[in-house]
């Protein structure tokens, strides 16, 4: 199976409190923030690697994983890290975040999918910076492919389909999607028994989480193919459909008050908060 994985580099979500909005309000200031791969995209890569191997012999690859990111030169570090953990080749679409929206990324990905001809596109359900949760769905629509979103489990089936488990209220909904398809993943996808290729025994349990790269593999990743593509090559129209009018930080939380006793509390809840 050939899988295309879309990876986005985002500002470290653990440093969200360091995000600043300049007085002009025209952008989010990301200077000084650490960059990390979007966690859901890392899970997507892990899922793709599990689908292209026998879990007991992960060194022998059984399939091809292509990783793609949209970003400036620096984002190649993210791609190299993906190559080190087992992806076969990488593509960087040269662009900066302010030149992109979910629609444009999906349109450009469509062209890439037509070039690369993967059997499956796997990506995170959303990126933790903009939290748009759009690209997978738009891409499936543009390609006219079936889609399964928020995947918690994926099982490859011999008949050219994947069985995707989706956690819903009160249980798990299973969707059988015929390949080629688009699947977006949720965090449960990296649990021990979430993803099985046809080669991996159902009794096999993966280590929870995203795999580590072996040190020699990190060295060898320097030699794996990484190509750069211009955004305009992939999408004739690079005009954005989503434009941002203004950025504003949420208002600072006001200090609370202390009440003397329960009576005062009830009084305030009734008269001021008007919740009783």
């Amino acid at each position, binding site marked *: 199976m050939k899988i295309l994985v879309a990876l986005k580099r985002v500002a470290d979500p653990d440093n969200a409190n360091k995000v600043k909005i300049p007085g002009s309000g025209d952008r989010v200031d990301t200077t000084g923030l650490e960059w990390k791969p979007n966690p859901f995209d890392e899970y997507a890569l892990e899922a793709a690697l599990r689908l292209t191997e026998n879990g007991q012999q992960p060194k022998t690859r059984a399939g091809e994983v292509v990783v793609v990111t949209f970003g400036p030169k620096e984002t190649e*570090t993210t791609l*190299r890290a993906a190559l080190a953990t087992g992806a076969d080749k990488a593509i960087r679409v040269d662009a900066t975040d302010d030149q992109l929206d979910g629609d444009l990324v999906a349109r450009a990905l469509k062209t890439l999918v037509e070039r690369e001809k993967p059997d499956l596109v796997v990506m995170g359900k959303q990126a933790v910076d903009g939290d748009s949760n759009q690209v997978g769905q738009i891409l499936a629509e543009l390609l006219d492919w079936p889609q399964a979103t928020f995947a918690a489990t994926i099982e490859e089936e011999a008949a050219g389909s994947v069985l995707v488990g989706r956690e819903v209220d009160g249980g798990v909904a299973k969707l059988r999607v015929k390949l080629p398809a688009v699947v977006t993943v949720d965090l449960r996808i990296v649990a021990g028994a979430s993803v099985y290729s046809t080669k991996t025994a159902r009794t096999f349990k993966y280590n929870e*989480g995203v795999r*580590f790269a072996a*040190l*020699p593999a*990190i060295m060898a990743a320097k030699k794996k193919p990484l190509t750069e593509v211009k955004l305009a090559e992939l999408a004739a129209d690079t005009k954005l459909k989503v434009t941002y009018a203004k950025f504003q930080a949420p208002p600072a939380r006001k200090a609370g008050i202390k009440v003397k006793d329960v009576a005062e509390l009830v009084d305030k809840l009734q008269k001021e908060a008007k919740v009783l």
Partner: protein
Amino acid sequence: MIEWSDTHRSIRDMVRRFVEAEIKPKVTELEHGDLPPYDILRKMFATFGMRDMGEIRAAKAQARAEKRAAARARGEDLQQEERTESGDQVAMQMLPIIELSRFCPGMVTALGVSVGLTANTIMSRGTPRQIERWAKDLLTLDKIGAWAITEPGSGSDAFGSMKATARRAEGGYRLNGNKTFITNGPYADTIVFICKLDEDNDPKDRKVLSFVLERGEKGLVQSKPLKKMGMHSSPTGELFLEDVFVPNDRLLGETEEISYRSGAKDTFTAERTGVVAMALGIIEQCLQLSVEYAKTRVQFGRPIGDFQLIQLKLAKMEVARMNVQNLVFRIIELSTEGKRMPLAEASGCKLYCAQSAMEVALEAVQLFGGNGYMAEFQVEQLARDAKVLQIYGGTDEIQISQIARSLLAG
């Protein structure tokens, strides 16, 4: 090399992720309890492909030893070829040392003695058969190694005052003596035992030989871990040998003609450059913790980082970090160029880095004040750990005398 490459950073991030997940949650058991470090180290080896790399190293060493043996059989004295590792290989060894040393420098000591000192001694002196028998399992961490030279009465003057002996016996040797401060001693499966051949001659004229001992050998007692100031994640013990009989195939090289004294220099250089990486890890961690603390600890109504005396401490720590990091870069760069660091320079590096790590760690304790004295804030542990860098692998005083001797020679 003036900075870490992207590849180096990837390695660092990957190891850091492992340390966060596997070591950080166990620091209390490792550093304040009795948890031996070996299972975590084995997991690290399996995770990062270091086990496979160990197997490859063992196979290469065996091939080299076969070449040496063949040359000797032809009557040629094949000088041990210079083995230089590429810069990236050296970086690949140093980055895990740096990251481990931020939390458990003792784990580096336990690891270094097993796969470094012990395995390297067997690989450089052993016959092909001996390498196959012992080195491979050490390099994969399937077995744990110890390297026994120090004795209660012999430290810096290791060979001069050495009392441990080997006497020839029918089909082998009888070994006697006490060794102390032996890293991994309590748990070791494979022990390189260094002693003098007693031919009823004057001790100062005796040959120094090395033997391989296995756990459970009759007459060999491995003590429980000794209580010590720091490096608690590295078990240290004593070895007692009473008339331990070993067959001839336990003598490294299987000949009395290779004196242990020759070639000890390579061991020292490797040990000393390892200390440089450990010092960097300790310094980086102390500095990072101190900067965070200086920003968040409020006294007299403002963060203590506003005070110039605190700023001075931070600036000095940063300068130490820059210097030690540059020495790490130099060691890597020398390997890239196929050069080896001369012993006197390795001594200088070790001296400077050990002292810097100690100073930085103590300054960090001071900066943290009362909290710094408490185990909870980690700098206390790193300060205790750092002290041994000035003692083991050659004391500061020995390094100083070697630097001076090299300056005054000729």
